[in-house]
């Protein structure tokens, strides 16, 4: 069964249609490449074929490369994976070059979303026509899994657009609506969706010889904006290196490799540049960071989203048609918004009718924003808003499939609204609490049917954050779990399934990170060093800035509750001391306009509050950067291991994914468990013990690490470990 089909039309246009069997989205496999190669050969050899259109038999063009194919290439190469990968890439380059240098016109007709190698294939064609569909996305997202476009996309896009325009597409990996990529010059033409194929045929039949020669295959081609040693290009390339360096803090090998491929490629002819691109791509692919990112953010993410953790006993039911949201604050409104965008009817309830209206208005602002950016067309935007019905009356919950409670974190209040909601809802309805701090098991006591109840912990801001923690309490039934996981998928989020315990998984690990920042401050470490060291580990935000974002008041409240629960065993007095000193100084965080940082009147962060120096009581220490970095990462990673040991976490795939998507744990590492693997379990154990000796029991290595070190085990087998490699 071929992934591509060939048909020669009466008009002499050969149409090669990408249409993988039994898949809703095309992805490029090794077999697919061979199919395409063969069909291109036929089209170019057949005298009756005047030209070629490459299109898709599905609503979208392609989702990208099947990363499994890269793993397979690596395995085929046996003990010398670099050789196998390099040769595999050069085969792709030869195929794409054959298309690009064909003497017959070749057009790409993109009916919808086109990602990764799909776009790289299109870029090798002579002309790209895309359907003007607001919901379609076109781009090169490879950088997000620790790679960069390695099928010629990097080399072609820089030569087509210049470094300035190409760099964000290559190095940020954004997927943009067709209109946006058209205005950047990535695609050549937009047409109404129904006319894509015809427009492409017409172009092929009309194309003159000049139109089928790429600029870079002409003499004296010059990269738009200039190469690195041209007068105007020099600053551009110097600036790009600095910008990428500053933004990635040096921890993402793919960004650096992509920029090297661009720089070195810009100095040589096109075919040599492709070879250089292949060398850097192989180098990246063999880097532990890329391996970890692919595993966590692609393979494991896909497996989880396909239901790897779904109770097998429960068949996939109908999607949630109607959702009840209790509490129209920031979280409630956000949940209502993402559900409405996914086509779900939402009853957005609040005790206060005006608050409910405000919640709907907040969603409207997000919808308008999406429409302005072209990712939602105006008709669809209106439909989204129409799906949200604000109100105060619980009878609106009668025919809901799912109800999510998002009222303030007050156990009494929550118990009351949950009981009321259960009374108003049908017997099949699943009820969830979006609490981030209260035990689900305790809240379940308020309900008659605790088996239909669980936690659904959304992250803020809901419309941006991709993770949901599904918390299974003691009595939560499989049916409820299955519906919660399915709902997460329905609204485009990635769910992880964890057991009920204080702070679940994500907050359990992020709080020690915040507290470590506070302890460092308390010891007299320069606040800038704390924040910069955190960023140098790959954390997106330093602990002090994060505390400002979540609010110091909230952090102090959580600390108070924890202290009450733990009594004498409570270990974080140093952190509390700083938190209460901040509150005493009237600095409750960003919303209050003052926290660890100063803010201007519009809430823009200025700089660290100079008064922080006095919080340490005059102490001043200058630890090694490496020590500070280790403390900030180990304190999180060891807690993740403890969560696994305790059974809160049942699957390290979820532990990695939840950490990266939920709180931005050093994404380059693929998550805490793969970060520990990269350190080496022996090394991690020894380092934890050293940190424990200096800084206390929070760094005591869990038994699991001892056992693994003793047995020579790691959390993950190498990616190519299965099979021949």
């Amino acid at each position, binding site marked *: 069964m071929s992934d591509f089909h060939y048909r020669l039309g009466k008009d002499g246009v050969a149409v090669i249609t990408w249409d993988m069997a039994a898949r809703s989205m095309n992805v490029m496999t090794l077999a697919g490449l061979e199919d395409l190669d063969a069909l291109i050969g036929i089209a170019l050899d057949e005298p009756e074929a005047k030209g070629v259109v490459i299109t898709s038999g599905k609503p979208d063009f392609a989702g990208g490369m099947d990363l499994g194919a890269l793993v397979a290439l690596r395995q085929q190469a046996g003990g010398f994976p670099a050789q196998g990968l390099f040769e595999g890439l050069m085969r792709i380059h030869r195929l794409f070059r054959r298309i690009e240098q064909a003497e017959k016109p070749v057009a790409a007709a993109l009916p919808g979303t086109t990602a990764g190698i799909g776009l790289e294939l299109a870029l090798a064609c002579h002309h790209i026509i895309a359907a003007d569909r607001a919901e379609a996305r076109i781009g090169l997202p490879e950088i997000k899994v620790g790679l960069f476009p390695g099928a010629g996309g990097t080399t072609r896009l820089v030569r087509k657009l210049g470094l300035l325009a190409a760099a964000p597409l290559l190095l940020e990996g954004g997927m943009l609506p067709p209109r946006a990529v058209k205005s950047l010059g990535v695609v050549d033409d937009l047409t109404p969706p129904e006319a894509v194929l015809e427009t492409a045929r017409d172009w092929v039949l009309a194309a003159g010889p000049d139109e089928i020669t790429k600029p870079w295959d002409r003499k004296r081609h010059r990269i738009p904006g200039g190469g690195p040693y041209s007068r105007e290009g020099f600053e551009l390339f110097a*600036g790009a*290196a600095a910008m990428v*360096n500053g933004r990635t803090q040096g921890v993402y090998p793919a960004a650096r490799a992509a920029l090297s491929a661009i720089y070195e490629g810009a100095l040589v002819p096109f075919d040599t540049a492709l070879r250089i691109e292949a060398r850097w791509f192989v180098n990246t692919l063999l880097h532990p960071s890329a391996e970890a990112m692919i595993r966590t953010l692609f393979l494991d993410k896909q497996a989880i989203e396909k239901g790897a953790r779904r109770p097998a006993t429960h068949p996939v039911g109908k999607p949630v048609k109607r959702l009840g949201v209790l509490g129209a604050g920031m979280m409630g409104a956000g949940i209502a918004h993402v559900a409405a965008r996914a086509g779900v009817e939402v009853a957005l309830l609040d005790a206060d009718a005006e608050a409910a209206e405000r919640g709907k208005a907040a969603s409207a602002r997000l919808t308008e924003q999406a429409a302005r950016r072209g990712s939602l067309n105006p008709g669809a935007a209106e439909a989204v808003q129409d799906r949200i019905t604000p109100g105060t009356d619980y009878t609106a919950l009668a025919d809901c499939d799912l109800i999510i409670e998002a009222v303030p974190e007050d156990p009494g209040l929550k118990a009351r609204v949950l009981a009321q909601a259960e009374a108003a809802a049908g017997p099949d309805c699943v009820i969830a609490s979006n609490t981030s701090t209260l035990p689900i098991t305790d809240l379940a006591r308020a309900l008659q049917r605790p088996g239909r109840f669980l936690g659904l912990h959304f992250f803020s801001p809901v419309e941006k954050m991709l993770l949901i923690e599904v918390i299974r309490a003691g009595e939560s039934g499989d049916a409820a779990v299955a519906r919660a996981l399915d709902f997460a998928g329905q609204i485009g989020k990635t769910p992880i399934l964890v057991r009920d315990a204080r702070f679940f998984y994500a907050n359990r690990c992020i709080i020690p990170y915040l507290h470590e920042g506070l302890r460092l401050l308390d010891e007299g470490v320069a606040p800038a060093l704390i924040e910069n060291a955190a960023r140098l580990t790959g954390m997106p935000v330093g602990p002090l800035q994060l505390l400002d974002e979540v609010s110091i008041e909230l952090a102090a409240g959580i600390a108070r509750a924890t202290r009450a629960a733990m009594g004498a065993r409570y270990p974080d007095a140093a952190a509390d001391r700083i938190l209460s000193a901040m509150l005493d100084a009237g600095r409750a965080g960003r919303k209050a306009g003052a926290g660890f940082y100063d803010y201007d009147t519009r809430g823009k962060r200025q700089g660290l509050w100079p008064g922080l120096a006095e919080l340490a009581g005059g102490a001043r220490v200058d630890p090694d950067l490496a020590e500070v970095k280790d403390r900030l990462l180990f304190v999180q990673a060891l807690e993740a291991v403890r969560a696994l040991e305790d059974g809160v976490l049942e699957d390290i795939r979820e532990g990695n994914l939840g950490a990266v998507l939920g709180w931005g744990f050093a994404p380059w590492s693929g998550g805490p468990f793969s970060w520990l693997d990269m350190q080496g379990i022996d090394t991690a154990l020894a380092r934890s013990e050293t940190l424990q000796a200096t800084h206390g029991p929070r760094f005591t290595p869990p038994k699991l690490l001892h056992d693994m070190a003793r047995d020579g085990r790691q959390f993950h087998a190498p990616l190519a470990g299965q099979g021949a490699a």
Partner: protein
Amino acid sequence: MSDAYIFDSVRTPRGRGRADGGLHEVTALRLSALVLDALRNRCEIAPDAIEDVIWGNATQVGEQGGCLARSAALASGFADTVPGLSINRFCASGLEAVNLAAAQLRAGLGEAYVAGGVEMLSRVPIGSDGAAIAVDPTLAMEKCLVPQGIAADLIATLHGFGREDVDAYAVQSQQRAAAAWEDGRFHKSVVPVRDINGLMILDRDEHMRPETDMAALAALKPAFREQGEGMPGFDAVALMRYPQLERVNHVHHAGNSSGITDGAAGMLIGTRAFGERYGLRPRARIRATARVGTDPTIMLTGPVPATRRALEAAGMEIGDIDLFEVNEAFSAVVLHFLQAFGADPERVNVNGGAIAMGHPLGATGTMILGTLLDELERRDAATGLAVLCVATGMGAATVIERV
């Protein structure tokens, strides 16, 4: 082993490095040849008397490319048998030319050299020869490279020099340079630049602004803030190496940084025997030389370790040096030097420096060594040290003593 002696030293006036600058119409070749001829004529040596012309230049492309040293030798009155060696250690090229000549003399290679350098910044702009270290990600990203201005601001931030400190130093440089010109202290060495018909083109450093005061400087905006904090954001790169800092304090601007100028300078350096043959009195002995590499991010801290190394080689201590020339690439570079050694400011750059008079990169090293020598003679002092910071994290120093 033969000691190396300085017999003569000349420099051109420094023209503003712009299209309306006084030397803009003069080629790098002609300005170089003019210096070579001035030395030969003043010292009355035979056209073939020297072993080599070692010529520093920081931007060896276009008219400064193609081994300008050899071209300059051929364009001068020296014989065709005198070769030429172009060298590049960026801002210290002119000092390295002297150091290299001295080293070769000590090694017994020849009896005399002309060492010096040229830079026509109005004609061959900085960076026009490219630089992998700025654009090749394998190096630029790995080593956290930032432009010199950001590096200078980083020094100021790290060592606590505020805007007033760097501006005050700049005002002093202007005042000292003006006073030195007024007093005729440069006359011994400055060779006026005349045209092919003998008409005057430039006879005085034209970059100076003696009227500069604190208020005038305070009005200037920091020159490197935009590229540091805005696009492309070099500060974030600098902080990757200096994470103890929250931000870079941008204090430098055109008024407290070295001036972009055109100019050339040269010295005749030889053995004692060479001097005796031509009846030349040695003015100073080159006692020690040093070159160092430092952290390339902060880039401009080289003068401190280069000075330490030169002193060590000379068997001297900082207090043994009567006068210092520390190239005024940026105010903070000199303030850092003063802070590191606790040196007496009244002995450092006493006749002003590159902030007032300009910094023709490849020539400056020779120029400040010449200025140092003239001033030692004027004061009848014995020892001097000249030192420069160098792009990409280097430094070079020379210790001389009068004989």
